[in-house]
């Protein structure tokens, strides 16, 4: 959404007008949307969108209940002036200051400055009315940024968008609409006074009489303004609003007053697809057009945007800016210094690394030599340990064998698991079966009792027979047995002895 869009919300007795305008490059505005409805709350989604644009939303209230005044106060600071203004309102209305919503501005005009005093134009509305309007806006979900009475909208519109505004010193601007009728007597410094104008009670039946009354009221207002302290020289009467009535009034004023009068066609400033703006919609459209623009007056209660006051905020911003500005050179210088120190350290560390690398390489060579020596020692040890005492095994076997036992086959072999296995195949011969069997059992018991032999299960073969040998019958027990041989392990110092032998 363009930043030049403006919105206004205007609550009237029997409904609301919600207006959205966008400024045109060639000047003037386009009415983007215009909604009128009964009740206080708009229902369409489009109307509800107003709540999203509170930054450029002017809430226009009827000027009838809003009071204005021009006062002179001593030259004080802004805060004290504000207190003085609200105090003046409280005294004037004989009620506490917090029951009034006040907006004020010092009149600024070259040549009118007073040495010890300043003139202030102020407008105020009861807080109750203001709150009720705020509540109505909140029912829309909207929080307007500004609240202005209709006459202030007209005054601001004339000052900013009428071609003669800069050349006139004082003027009287009259608005005649179907619903709203008022006039504002202003000088280039500020609004001086505003007056409601009578409505046409004949409802158009006696237009001339109504115009006479209006002209009289306008003339009186000029007279009244001249009686004030500021004694303005009204140079022009500007009439706007309903075209027909305004033209009639201009003609009437030309006849009855000496002040030049002219019609100001405000509706020309607004483009609308459906034709020209009706006089009832002119003021809401003007309020929307003024919404994006700066305005010194606002009847909304002051809402501080921040927790801090303006002075504290200014100091905080100043401190933050100073810190940010100071931080840059500190960081730059600190970074450069650190980098320089790091570079020096890196150079030294690289040199140390080169020297250490040489020493570490030498150490690595020593370590490698150590590992080779350890590997060789381990190998030598493994062979020394595995050096089985085969002769001892055989001699041990011989010592256990009774004379009746005859070996047929004796095998010693290392299995894949590294165990030495003894395979015995033999026979026990005797004259009787009992003797042959007894010899075998004695042999088997001797083998089983040996600490160097472990039986690998039951005998594989055990056969008792009675063969004839040299025509004599003998009794024989044939057997096949297997034993695991427990080799004598060499002590770990065997390597040392091997090495010692080598040295010799």
């Amino acid at each position, binding site marked *: 959404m363009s930043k030049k869009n403006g919105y206004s919300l205007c609550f009237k007795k029997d409904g609301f007008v919600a207006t959205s305008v966008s400024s045109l490059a060639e000047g003037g505005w386009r009415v983007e949307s215009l909604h009128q409805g009964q009740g206080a709350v708009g229902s369409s989604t489009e109307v509800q969108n107003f709540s999203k644009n509170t930054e450029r939303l002017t809430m226009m209230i009827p000027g009838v209940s809003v009071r204005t005044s021009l006062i002179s106060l001593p030259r004080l600071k802004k805060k004290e002036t504000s207190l003085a203004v609200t105090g003046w309102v409280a005294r004037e209305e004989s009620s506490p200051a917090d029951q009034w919503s006040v907006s004020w501005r010092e009149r600024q005009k070259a040549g009118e400055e007073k040495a010890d005093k300043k003139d202030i134009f102020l407008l105020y509305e009861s807080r109750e009315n203001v709150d009720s309007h705020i509540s109505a806006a909140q029912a829309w979900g909207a929080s307007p940024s500004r609240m202005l009475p209709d006459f202030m909208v007209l005054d601001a519109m004339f000052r900013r968008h009428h071609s003669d505004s800069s050349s006139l010193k004082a003027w009287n601007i009259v608005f005649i609409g179907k619903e709203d009728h008022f006039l504002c007597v202003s000088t280039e410094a500020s609004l001086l006074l505003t007056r409601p104008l009578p409505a046409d009670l004949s409802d158009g039946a006696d237009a001339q009489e109504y115009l006479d009354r209006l002209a009289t009221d306008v003339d009186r207002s000029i007279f009244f303004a001249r009686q004030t302290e500021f004694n303005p020289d009204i140079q022009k009467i500007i009439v706007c609003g309903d075209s027909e009535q305004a033209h009639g009034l201009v003609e009437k004023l030309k006849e009855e007053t000496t002040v030049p009068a002219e019609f100001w066609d405000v509706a020309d400033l607004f483009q609308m697809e459906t034709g020209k703006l009706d006089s009832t919609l002119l003021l809401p459209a003007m309020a929307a057009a003024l919404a994006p623009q700066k305005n010194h007056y606002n009847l909304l209660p002051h809402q501080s945007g921040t927790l801090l006051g303006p002075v504290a905020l200014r100091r905080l911003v100043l401190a933050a800016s100073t810190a940010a500005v100071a931080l840059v050179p500190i960081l730059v210088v600190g970074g450069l210094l650190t980098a320089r120190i790091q570079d020096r350290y*890196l150079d030294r560390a690289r040199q140390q690394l080169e020297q250490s690398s040489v*020493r570490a390489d030498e150490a690595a060579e020593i370590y490698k030599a150590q590992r080779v020596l350890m590997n060789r020692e*381990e*190998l030598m040890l493994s062979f020394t340990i*595995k050096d089985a005492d*085969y002769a001892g095994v055989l001699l041990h076997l011989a010592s256990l064998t009774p004379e009746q036992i005859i070996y047929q086959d004796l095998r010693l*072999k290392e299995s894949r698991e590294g165990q030495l296995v003894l395979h015995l195949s033999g026979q026990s011969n005797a004259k009787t079966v009992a003797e042959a069997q007894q010899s075998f059992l004695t042999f088997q018991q001797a083998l089983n009792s040996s600490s160097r032999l472990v039986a690998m299960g039951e005998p594989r073969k055990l056969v008792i027979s009675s063969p004839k040998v040299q025509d004599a019958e003998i009794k024989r027990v044939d057997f096949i047995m297997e034993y695991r041989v427990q080799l004598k392990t060499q002590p770990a110092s065997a390597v040392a002895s091997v090495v010692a032998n080598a*040295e010799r």
Partner: protein
Amino acid sequence: MAGKKTRQLSWLKNARIRWGILSGVWVVLVVLVVVPTWQGVVARNSEISDLETRLATMDDWTVAGMWLAPSVKERTLPVNAAFSRLFPAEREREEFFLSLAQIADQSRVDDFSLSEASGLGMESNDVWNDGTAMAADDDAPPTDGAEATMDGGMELEIPKVELDSYRVKTQFFGDYQRIAHFMNGLKGIERAVKVHSLVIRPQRDGVQVKLELDVYVSKTSQS
């Protein structure tokens, strides 16, 4: 001319523009100068940390080397000599055969015969298959040696100590006492020898012995 210049620079009087320009300059300084400077500082810091780690590792190695050096120097000669004797670089078959023959003479065994077996690696799982049962090459004792990566990125290639083996078959005849003497004599040979199998068969007037020996030699590659 001066008036034109003044008009050209009049926009500088706008506070918002002045603040905008100052803020822009500040951001440009931060982005183009401060940030790159500190990025360099952070990068250098990580480089320093890496270097310090490597230096610490190098120092550890240096100290370890200083401790190891005397011990290694002292042990190198005797261990290598013993190893060379136990695992000669060449097969030195003739010398070994001569040693076996001498033991056979001293043991007074008869019909002593010697031969080198072929077909290594064909051995089956049958322990008692006494045909041409040969030790597999990978039956050799494990040899150490590998690449080692140490902390701090130092890579060391530890030289491998590899062994080769061949098999010798002997056959002789004698009584048990002579056989035991022969077997005992094997222990006197300063070579890495393992009895692969021993088969003793009693015969009419003695015992027939078939003995297979695995003889190990080194094929050391020391870098």
